[in-house]
């Protein structure tokens, strides 16, 4: 008992000492959080690495100038395991304990939605990366003052996918398989379905699974029997690869289609031939000259390819720096004001933050096809 208490006190004191390191006045602390463990850890790691790399680059160049003074940037990142409750805790820690001026991330809408009250209380803005649910920035028709993002939103993505499948690929019978326990997947499915039907197509099968499932053959067998022209799979690459493999094992040869949950190195290594010839909606074209420089820098520093999230967090950093410079002072509230209506040329396109929605308006989507294990850009496509 005594020993247990002693250990506890020790741990507590170490933690307190560890936290006591005070900030230097010429440093701007910026928070980041996302999943460093769990299904989406690949992306979390990629995001945080990118943030660290960019900050280092700024610092090596002497820092950034805000209001006539040079500042260094410091990134403080935490893992929230992709969990909403953890997200709130982490944001409380970042705003309260670490006193960051802004937060970058997360990539999941489920984690970005519940942090709004904490941000509002602390007056610290957050720039989400790939959180595509509309409710991240707007709730009850009111824009949340401290939530921003650099990506397009689900209704738009769903509409793009539906439009491209119906108009360009000339598919009229679509099947959907989605993750019923995932907010992102449910959202895309809903908007795809609505738009596809509005265009005149029919949904011949609408099947779902539960997050964590690894076997989709019962649903796929049912889909096979419905004989669709295309199967829409709005979920993340792990399940995409698994379900694609199983579909091929069942002898399904139909084209597959998905959203921005797809792009990842792992998709190709896991899905292999099964995902050949599939299409997905993406935030950018990997072959776009604008992104090549970043891609190369990342590869040089970390020895591996960047993921999709890296590009978006890259632009989130650009947005942050531009916002700080526009605000002219290191202050969360001022930064939030400055971000409204700001216009920044990012590597994923022109980012034009609307004061009404805090979304980057008018961002084109890129349609990518998997050919020979490569992501091949097809065209920029905007839903009408």
């Amino acid at each position: 008992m005594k020993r247990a208490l002693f250990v506890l006190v020790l741990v507590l004191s170490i933690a307190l000492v560890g936290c006591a390191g005070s900030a230097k006045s010429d440093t701007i602390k910026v928070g980041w959080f996302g999943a460093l463990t769990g299904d989406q850890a690949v992306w979390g790691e990629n995001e945080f690495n990118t943030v660290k790399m960019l900050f280092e680059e700024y610092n090596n160049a002497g820092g950034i100038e805000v209001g006539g003074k040079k500042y260094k940037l410091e990134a403080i990142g935490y893992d929230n395991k992709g969990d909403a409750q953890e997200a709130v805790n982490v944001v409380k820690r970042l705003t309260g304990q670490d006193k960051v001026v802004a937060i970058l991330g997360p990539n999941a809408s489920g984690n970005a939605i519940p942090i709004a009250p904490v941000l509002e209380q602390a007056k610290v803005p957050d720039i989400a990366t790939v959180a595509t649910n509309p409710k991240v920035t707007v709730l009850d028709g009111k824009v949340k003052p401290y939530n921003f993002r650099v990506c397009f939103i689900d209704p738009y993505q769903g509409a793009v996918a539906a439009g491209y499948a119906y108009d360009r690929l000339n598919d009229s019978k679509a099947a959907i398989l989605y993750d019923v326990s995932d907010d992102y997947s449910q959202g895309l499915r809903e908007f795809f379905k609505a738009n596809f039907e509005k265009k005149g197509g029919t949904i011949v099968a609408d099947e779902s699974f539960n997050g964590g499932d690894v076997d989709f053959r019962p649903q796929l067998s049912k889909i096979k029997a419905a004989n669709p022209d295309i199967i829409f799979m709005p979920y993340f690459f792990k399940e995409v690869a698994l379900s694609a493999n199983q579909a091929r094992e069942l002898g399904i040869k139909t084209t597959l289609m998905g959203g921005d949950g797809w792009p990842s190195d792992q998709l190709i290594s896991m899905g292999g031939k099964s995902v050949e010839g599939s299409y997905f909606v993406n935030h950018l074209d990997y072959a776009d000259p604008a992104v090549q420089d970043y891609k190369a820098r990342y590869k040089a520093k970390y020895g591996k390819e960047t993921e999709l999230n890296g590009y978006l967090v890259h632009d989130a950093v650009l947005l942050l720096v531009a916002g700080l410079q526009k605000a002219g002072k290191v202050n969360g509230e001022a930064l939030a004001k400055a971000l409204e209506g700001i216009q920044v040329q990012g590597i994923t396109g022109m980012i034009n933050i609307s004061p009404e929605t805090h979304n980057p308006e008018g961002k084109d989507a890129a349609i990518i096809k998997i050919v020979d294990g490569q992501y091949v850009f097809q065209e920029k496509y905007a839903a009408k």
Partner: protein
Amino acid sequence: MTQFFQQVINGLSIGSVYALMAVGYSLVYSIMNFSNFAHGGVIMLGAYFGFFSLTLLHLPFLAAFLLASIGTTILAIVVERIAYKPLRERKAPFLYFIISAMGASILLENIVIATIGPTFRTYPEVFARTPISIGPLAIGRLDLLMFVISAVCLTALILFIEKTKMGKAIQAAAYNIKACALMGINTDKVILIVFGLGGFLAGVAGVFFGMKYTVYPQIGNITTKSFIAAVFGGLGSLPGAVLGSVILGILETFVAGYLSSQYRDLIAFVILIGVLIIRPSGIMGKNTEDKA
């Protein structure tokens, strides 16, 4: 009709994965009378062992298989020594075992996350993805192999339990561990062997799981299901675990295929509760009578 048979094949295939896992739960339960939740973690590590044997050591498939299974056998025994043996010696109530097992399961999962990393690993393609077609029906090559190896492993296990002296000792220990000791049987060794066997099967299950799906630290969901299958068949009964797994596999497939895929898991849990109400110790579980 085609879809019906296809769904039966799907169900059997899922069922055989469950069976390999469920038997491990039942085996331990039969002797220790508690649900060894750490089994899921051992299966997960089995998948990793197999993966690294193939990719880092470049072992041939069968050797990797064996190495992974030996690894999990040792791991299961280590878990027993650390997390359960002290409790056993103290004759602690079964719930302490369960909590300790949960601790072990959290520990295993997070050690993997902290050391190997949280990302998915994909097995090199040992078997082609193209199915064997029988008319309109498709059977995966891996599924077929898995079904065969599951059947072989489970038959071997049942033969071992039924026909060998050690197997008899295990059966005897499941009935009464004290009387077992009176026969000169080292009960500690019996318990180790049971955990070892469970661990071995966990390795087989893990490698198959990895080959068929993927490897990552939280393969929890499917192990939970296989645990349900074990309960369903009656904890402590090996044939029960196999039967429960097959039934659950087919049932789930049919719910997903014919009713609603949304409710697949929900129905699995509702059935679980239903079975417990009608037959509180599962289909083939041993009925313990409480005497005053």
